[in-house]
């Protein structure tokens, strides 16, 4: 990789993980709020957007962060978070139809596949 490309990768790898972590934490908090009081969040915010943002950020983080330990850590947290939030996300995705559900399942499956491939590394 060329020097400028490496530099960009390092900058992105520095900026994105905190946002990815924040998006995951937000997803967990929103899921819990929704779990306690249905409609508290979903009346105003589409969960698919939050889940998609978290997923994309983590994929970018995984793609840019160099050290394998951090990459593994980067995968463990969102996988666990999404797994924990899955029942609520499933419940919320249902009204949005099969497409919303399929997007979520595909995203989670993608993370699990990458996670497993990282473990093998």
């Amino acid at each position: 990789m060329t020097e400028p490309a490496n530099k960009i990768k390092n900058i992105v790898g520095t900026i994105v993980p905190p946002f990815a972590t924040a998006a995951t934490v937000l997803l967990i908090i929103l899921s819990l709020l929704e779990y306690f009081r249905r409609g508290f969040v979903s009346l105003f915010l589409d969960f698919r957007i939050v889940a998609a943002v978290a997923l994309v950020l983590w994929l970018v983080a995984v793609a840019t962060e160099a050290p394998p330990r951090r990459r593994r850590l980067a995968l463990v947290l969102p996988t666990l978070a999404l797994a924990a939030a899955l029942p609520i996300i499933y419940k919320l995705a249902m009204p949005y139809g099969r497409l919303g559900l399929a997007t979520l399942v595909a995203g989670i499956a993608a993370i699990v596949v990458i996670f497993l491939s990282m473990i093998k590394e």
Partner: protein
Amino acid sequence: MRYLRIISIFLAAASTIAVLVWIVAQNLVPSGIFEAHWRPDASSALIGPVVPEARLLPLGISDDGMPYRSLVEEPVNFDVRLPSTFDTATVSVTVAGEPKIVELGGLASRATWTNDLRPGSNAIIDGLNWTAVRANGLTLYERRPDFKTVDDFLSNLPTAGVAVYRADVSSLVKIPGYAPAKTAQTYKTAFRGAASLKVYLNNEPLDFTFRTQDVNRHAGADGFTATATLNGSRIARAQLSDDGNDGADGKLSGLRDLRLYTDQPISGVVRIDLPAPDDIVFRETATKQRKFVFSSRFYAADNVGYLKDPAAFSLVSNGRRLYATTTHPEAFQTLAVGGQKLAIDDLNKPFTVSTNDDIRAGGLVAISSPYGDLRLETAGLFAFAKDNFFNPDPAPVTWETDVDKDGIDYILTSYVPPSRRGDWRTMSATFDLAKLSVVSRAANFTISVPGIGLQQKELRISAIDVTLKRAPLTKDGLWPAIVKMWRSVTGQQKEFVNSLTN
């Protein structure tokens, strides 16, 4: 790179907090006014969907470019989800089409599926070329200008030619020559489930004893509280607890008496509400009151497991159209309605017959069933017998009313004609949310178009707009509101008082 990481962490944390603060603020609604909108071509997180879908036609576009869904059967319902506690909900529905009467309702009780219906659009009244006088939320339409004010009309209520539409004048009713009975009479016409009665009293105590039985055909406890009200104030209440069997095994309980009475004599028209679940059968009604009627519906019970003989019954009604439905094939029968026969030979299907001719000729129509087990509904009243009948409300305006043929000279109504724009009219009604059933942060509303199926008309719905209101949040009220929200979030507090009873 270290500073970049710190700045990133700070911004990420700030974004998360900002989203959470925004969500809380959205739920708190500091202004106290919250608007939600539904359009046929866009889904809304706060309103709808409008159900049942089978009563609506697919999306259409009108000549003026307005998307709409057409309603072809009624009623249809929709939920309005509430982000926090509000006092009132103003529901506005924009419609076009030919049905004569459109009404808006708020679901007041999920146990009895009772709606608080308000006038929306009434083509019969809109088409009148009569003089109108208004006062205190009421409008009097007169064929001839006989009364200068509404009060003048109410003080000298004519004995004939009066119709009402969503206006209550029962407190003014006087029955000439009425004298209270000296002994109680027992009526053995059995009915089941929720019922609402109106009783005429003239300086006599209210005293009704209902002999009840729990038939345990549906799972769940079957207790309820009966209430009697006079001019909106409760004067008596009586509670019937469950029989201890909340299963659906069909085991009949013993007979238990529910007595609703007052110690003091009363004069006026008393309303009795029996919000009983369908498992409660009222086998007998004993009362000294001579004049009492059932409002709009009468669920005739069966005798299965109780008596060998079928629960044949007869009633009288002043309704101009009768609907009869059964849920059991054993109850397929031919109902005698005046001089007509109404065959009921399908399940869960409302069979209907017009009784207009009988009502125009004699004021009442006789109904006779050889078996019972029927849900009867009408825009009018039922009574066990002609002697019990009295009319607390002058004739209601229904979609079948013909003011000329029916000899109507006055219509008293709370109806306010909707605003119009081209073919579209926007009707509105404001509901007190404390009086509606709010469950899981949602209230339910109804669009009712009586007789739309029989008229074979369509009602186009192009917009539903809901405005929720309460007092705006003040500095002092902010912290209590956050505490209340937290208690609501953690399930320690119900958002609406009525949620406790529904």
